[in-house]
């Protein structure tokens, strides 16, 4: 079983600020981590490998520093890491990102299942996973909360919906995006961490994956951010800090006037 896990490095906190002068995000001093949702994808990939044998390859697109995200994935049990890093990739929106990752996967060639986290904690778009499968023209199942079985070239999975879940069967190769209900990510082992430290991470550029110049980076991105801003704070509310009786009385008084 050849498993590919696509991950993204994101800021550790969502408490980011905007520089009022340049109107860009202040990223200094903010630690980078693997997107929390991708941790479940990594864990599921490793579990599939442990059950069926094979290899887990983890891919990320990002700046050279994103290499440490790949090393962390290897410390958990992934076998290989591939970093897609090229100035030409800068400014990619979800369409260009999906294309770039898909081209890298085409270069890897052999794969049975691609696993992504359901979305990234910085952008929250949930578009890249389905985008990759569309570029590769393979079946996709989003919001997977359980892999029931993988047998005879098919995967049977549970897909979470607003009302419950659906059980779906799909031929391999396929792409799934996973939700946090699917597993509990493990903690790395010391041997894994040592292996990760020594691991050789391949870096692929646009030329290596034969990506067309017009489909990557800023040029390949139809969407364009024209403005970022901090949402206006809510007007200060009314706070009651008297005795419970007084506070409740005041609140009820207000609510009955204009709500109930």
């Amino acid at each position: 079983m050849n498993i590919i896990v696509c991950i993204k490095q994101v800021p550790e906190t969502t408490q980011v600020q905007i520089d009022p002068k340049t109107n860009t995000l202040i990223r200094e001093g903010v630690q980078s981590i693997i997107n929390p949702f991708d941790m479940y994808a990594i864990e599921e990939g490793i579990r599939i490998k442990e059950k069926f044998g094979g290899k887990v390859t983890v891919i990320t697109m990002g700046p050279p520093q994103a290499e440490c995200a790949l090393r962390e994935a290897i410390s958990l049990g992934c076998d290989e890491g591939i970093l897609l890093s090229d100035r030409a990739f800068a400014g990619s929106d979800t369409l260009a990102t999906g294309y770039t990752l898909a081209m890298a996967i085409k270069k890897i060639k052999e794969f049975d299942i691609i696993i992504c986290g359901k979305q990234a904690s910085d952008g929250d778009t949930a578009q890249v996973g389905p985008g990759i499968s569309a570029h590769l023209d393979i079946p996709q199942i989003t919001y997977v909360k359980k892999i029931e079985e993988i047998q005879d070239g098919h995967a049977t999975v549970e897909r979470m919906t607003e009302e419950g879940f659906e059980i779906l069967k799909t031929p391999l190769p396929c792409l799934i995006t996973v939700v946090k209900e699917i597993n509990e990510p493990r903690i790395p082992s010391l041997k894994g961490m040592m292996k990760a430290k020594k691991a050789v991470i391949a870096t692929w550029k646009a030329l290596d994956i034969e990506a067309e110049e017009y489909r990557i980076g800023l040029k390949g991105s139809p969407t364009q951010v024209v403005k970022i801003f901090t949402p206006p704070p809510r007007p200060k509310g009314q706070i009651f800090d008297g005795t419970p009786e007084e506070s409740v009385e005041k609140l009820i008084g207000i609510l009955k006037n204009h709500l109930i």
Partner: protein
Amino acid sequence: MDYLLTENQKMIKDLCRQITEEKITPVAAELDKSEEFPWEVMKVIAKSDLFGLYIEEKYGGMGGGVLDLCLATEEFSKGCGGISVCYAASALGTYPIILYGTDEQKQKYLPDIAKGKKLAAFGLTEPAAGSDASAIQTTAKKEGDHYVLNGTKHFITNGGEAEIYTVIAMTDKTKGARGASAFIVEKGTPGFTFGKKEDKMGIRASATRELIFTDCKIPKENLLGKEGLGFIVTMKTFDMSRPGVAAQALGIAQGALDAAVKYAKERVQFGKPISSFQGIQFMLADMATEVEAARALVYATAREIDSGNKDSGRDSAMAKLFASDVAMKVTTDAVQIFGGYGYMKEYPAEKYMRDAKITQIYEGTNQIQRNIIALALIKEASKNKK
């Protein structure tokens, strides 16, 4: 403070910190209440290769030393002193095998311990033999290919939970301390049973039980070293393990200090966070300084042992003595900073204080440590005279 740790040691610290934050701290209060043995955490530690830190690579370990073990114990103890002692007590039970075991004995027992498949425990203390270890009553009588054990050990950490026990018993009562020997006893051996689980003040996630031997027959191959070496085995084992107790105390102290700093910043009285009051600031400053001094002593001692110094008894006694006294003081001050909340079980401060107390008592009370230190001083002084 930079202690010039190696890359590997930094890795160990990071890994243990992650385990503590994600797996230990969230369950600490609950296990303290329920006294349930932390098997889930033990499994996580096992999978992370940490039970093998101080065991040679050829027996399935990571080939590290006492400092590695101390770093792990310290980190775990920040989350829970009860959980960390389950880990550290296994090392205590293993050191006799590492120090005095034959290659066969090591082959047989160490790989399972290194993988965390089996926990170990050390059985020395008896109802009438605490600080005075030479008073032990448990006997081991040689009968052909076997030794037959009779007697009761008590206050044994990991008792009932561990699979492998190193036990000190008298093979020749007439020789006093020189008549003691060390044995490996496996759980499940006929005649080897466990007494009640103790209801303790602190480190309540750990299990403390009696080991009861009633005509318990063990093969003669289970003797560690030679007959009569029992007390040497014990002393040398404690020399190795005392920095571990010191590291446990250090971790508890650091955990309490961190909690106190956080609380002092959050708690508002007289319209200001209490951390802005000098009375609190001075307390925190003293606590931090003492913790750092303890750390320096613990790490230095561990390094000294790892560098091959065989005569580290005095230094490891100092490390254990100082770190545990610091832990008691710092955790008591942490309760004070928390004020009334510090006295309540809903907040973490009082648990640190309860957990800290045992570090002044076990593996040699701090009075015994002072004896060791003083004796070493006197011995050295008389040596210099000549």
